[in-house]
């Protein structure tokens, strides 16, 4: 799996790492059950702080794409599918668009809630 980070970008490095994994799951390069590199290894590879990598992994865990287990490291969950990962990417785009319009977090959540209420 390919990780790309741009230290010059305004996007936090941890989020960039999460985006790499999400992208790899979305395009099918990484399948369920696959183990991600240990945080320390990946930090060394990319020249970033271990905590930065862990922040990215934590984010993926909250999205339900990976499981973090002590001693076993980060494993792509069985429920993580390319479609699920693309959904996360879509959410990222929604947030970016909304921020560009100057919406607050509350207002972004309200946009989603209004959409859901319409169903």
């Amino acid at each position: 799996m390919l990780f790309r980070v741009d230290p010059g970008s305004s996007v936090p490095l941890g989020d960039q790492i999460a985006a790499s994994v999400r992208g790899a799951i979305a395009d099918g390069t990484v399948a369920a059950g696959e183990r991600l590199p240990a945080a320390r290894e990946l930090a060394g590879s990319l020249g970033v702080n271990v905590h930065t990598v862990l922040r990215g992994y934590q984010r993926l865990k909250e999205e339900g794409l990976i499981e973090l287990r002590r001693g076993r490291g980060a494993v792509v969950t069985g429920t993580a599918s390319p479609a699920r990962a693309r959904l996360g990417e879509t959410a990222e785009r929604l947030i970016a668009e909304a921020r560009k319009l100057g919406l607050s977090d509350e207002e972004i959540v309200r946009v989603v809630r209004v959409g859901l209420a319409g169903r």
Partner: protein
Amino acid sequence: MKRSTRSALPANNRPRGWIAAFPFVAAIAALGGVYAATAGRLPTRLATHFGDDGRADGYDSAQGFLTVCLVLLLVFGSAVVVCVQLRVPAQGGRWLTAAGYATAAATGYPGVLTLLGNVDATDASAVRLSLWQLAVTFAVAAAAGGLGWLLAGAEPPGDRPAPGAAPRLDLPAGMTAGWSRTVSSTPLAVLGVLTLCAGVAIGALADVIAGAVLVLGAILIILPASVRVTVDRRGLTLSPTLLPFRLHRIPLGRLAEVTSRRISAGKEFGGWGYRFRPGGSGLVLRSGDGIVLRLVSGREFVVTVDDAATAAAVLNTYLDRARSPQGG
């Protein structure tokens, strides 16, 4: 050096299959010819095995003896010819042919000696074949092997697969990329675990030292059975999937160019695991997609792993950066 002599030679168009088959055919013909010439003078019971003192201690009928010789020559002969024709292993045709010549001589020569020794014998137990004939057999086999080596000629060029493309990654300056993937071999892991169990059982029940040797062997099989391949700004790193240490690291500075192509474990490396062959080595856990690192020293190191093209692209991109005047 090796490369230049190989390309300077004209293509080796010798009929290698026929050359490989020749000694076995010759040995069968020699045995048949000697038997035809001496059949009337052979006893019904032949002395076919001899002890250290040259006395006969094993007997067989002429038909039985010839059948055993014929089967041996046919089995060895067809195995050698098939391997030479199929080029398995790819660069081993010359050695195989030489080994075939030596085997045919080491079977045919003692066979003929045995027949000749039995000629005009009234009592098979009185037939003698002295031990020094064993040394002569070795010499004949070695000479035949040498002849086979010369007849087979140099390995035909072009049976090394063509190198794949050397891809690049679209990586703007300032961006960092890293690539990581695991590759495992279930057969190797199973073999390792079985060896480990055997080692523990033997160590506990029979011999501690033999057990320890087996356990050590098991560790050497298990460690490379599942490996994480990491490719980044530092080079290529191999480490066991479950343990946090390095098996092997090739820094960027030792790399000349990186490509990816399909690798055949059997044909190119003759098996699985950490493999060595003339001009290269590698971790070959399966056939298929693999990274091919051409080192500054001219040697090759290969790692079979999925998505090898991306890994090659990352390394080539960092090589380009290191070579560009601005530096990485």
